[in-house]
């Protein structure tokens, strides 16, 4: 991989982590604001509830995308325990390749969903201030990127990530 491509990848990662962090912080802020407004001022932001629900989906999709990078999707790990290293590599290619194809299919189907709502443009439900296809757009984008990333992961060795950034076993007292 060239130097420029590597730098590009680093920035892409930072962007992905940053976006995820930003959305989560907005979610925390909005949810807390709603409590304060309700309990002390007997009011609330009308568009906050649908927005928060969409944020759950968005952060979930970005989290799932991040989980591909670290090989942390929930799966049976019988193969890791009972197969020889060579067979394990083949199993990895087959299973992640299959998942990539499936994500690509979901990308295609959710594109259709977004297009339907875009073309129809009627499905603005209740308090939404944006048309329905905008929050839905995370589906094709997320599944598309996951398809690409699963294909890349299928060809790379498994990731080993620590469970915690600050391990208390090694942290100073």
């Amino acid at each position: 991989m060239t130097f420029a491509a590597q730098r590009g990848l680093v920035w892409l990662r930072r962007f992905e982590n940053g976006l995820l962090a930003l959305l989560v912080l907005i979610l925390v802020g909005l949810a807390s604001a709603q409590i304060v407004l309700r309990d002390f001022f007997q009011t609330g932001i009308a568009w906050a509830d649908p927005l928060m629900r969409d944020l759950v989906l968005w952060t979930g999709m970005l989290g799932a995308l991040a989980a591909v990078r670290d090989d942390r999707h929930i799966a049976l790990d019988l193969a890791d325990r009972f197969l020889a290293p060579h067979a394990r590599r083949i199993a990895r290619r087959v299973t992640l390749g299959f998942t990539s194809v499936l994500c690509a299919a979901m990308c295609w189907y959710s594109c259709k969903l977004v297009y339907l709502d875009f073309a129809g443009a009627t499905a603005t439900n209740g308090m939404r201030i944006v048309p329905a296809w905008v929050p839905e757009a995370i589906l094709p984008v997320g599944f598309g990127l996951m398809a690409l990333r699963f294909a890349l992961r299928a060809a790379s060795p498994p990731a080993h990530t620590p469970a915690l950034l600050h391990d208390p076993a090694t942290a100073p007292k």
Partner: protein
Amino acid sequence: MIWLVAGLLLILAALGTPLFAIIAAVALFGFHLAGEPGAAVAIEFYRLANMPALIAIPLFTLAGYLLAESQAPRRLVRLTNAMFGWLPGGLAIVSVCACTLFTAFTGATGVTLVALGAVLYPALRQAHYDERFSLGLLTCSGSLGLLLVPSMPLILYGVVAQQFHTTPPVSVDALFKAGLLPCLLMVGMLSLYSVWRTRNIPRPPRSSPREVWSAVKDAGWELPLPFVILAGIYTGRLAASEAAAATAMYVLIVTVLIRREIKFGELPRVIREAMLLVGAILIVLGFSLALTNWLIDGDVPERLFSALQSGLSNRFAFLLLLNVFLLVFGMLLEGFPAIIILVPLVLPVALHYGVDPVHLGIIFLANLQIGIFLPPIGMNIYIASARFDKPATTIMRASLPFYAILLLSVMIITYWPELSLALVR
């Protein structure tokens, strides 16, 4: 054709295909057979954005991860040790309580094992608890808090069960109330066993009031959290998602701005770590929403019930089968996916047998909790093996008495519904 696809998917699953892909494949195939377009699966998946109860999941998980990454585990152990360490079996009781509280917050039993195990294992060994007991105790304590507020698997059960509009309804708040006594039962039984088992170990002197006070002050910022959440939820003043929002905001301010144990620059990485867990679960949930719809349209739960009815005439037999089934499933998969996949199948059947849906949730989690560290492939055995640097077989042997105790408590929880329902109804 159907059997061919099913067999292929089973092989793929066994080889380690991410679970969501298997469920997505079944859903797409099922919708295709029913003559529905693939976009319908996307529509079902998008229902994730229409479930208000789900908001609590990322918020509580974030709070849990922030606490796990801070020095809170150390302070929690110090405080409980100052208060209970001098009792017979004191440090063992400390371990059980600290792990329970911690898992309740993170919902991730493995994280508790890693974070608290690092602090507790050396402490237990130093206090002359033998290796075998210490290993077994910590491995089993890791999963204890799943029944306690604000455990994420409980929320997840509520979200999945709510789709069935049962009477009585399954609210997340009701589940939180129902989990309290069963959780105390497990903690109590483990504590009793620990006291008996360690009766010959010399007891450390009682901590001075000064040490207790200083430990309380040390944990001053975290201390109000469990009480506020418990009080807020148990009095009905806060809904689960509001308690989650308040907790996340509070923990964020304390760990990042006040204590500064998580640097601002590290925050995106910690958030990513928490959301990775949430994302891995929500994507399974999303596809299983589609799958559930297809199962219900195909009357699968009804057929399952009539098939079972011939062999299992009463509730007792049904619950026994359920126990075995959940233990195996909990061992194969971590608790979360087991809930997502099994609840839609089991809940309608259980209702026919007259099982209360809230009680069923508690049965589910109590069983899965054991499954998580059940040999030969329960996840936490291997996490403990890596954490404590001991062979997996040693961990399994060390855990034997703890399986027995928890199995006994699961039997009590399963066949004594009032224990779960007393606080709810």
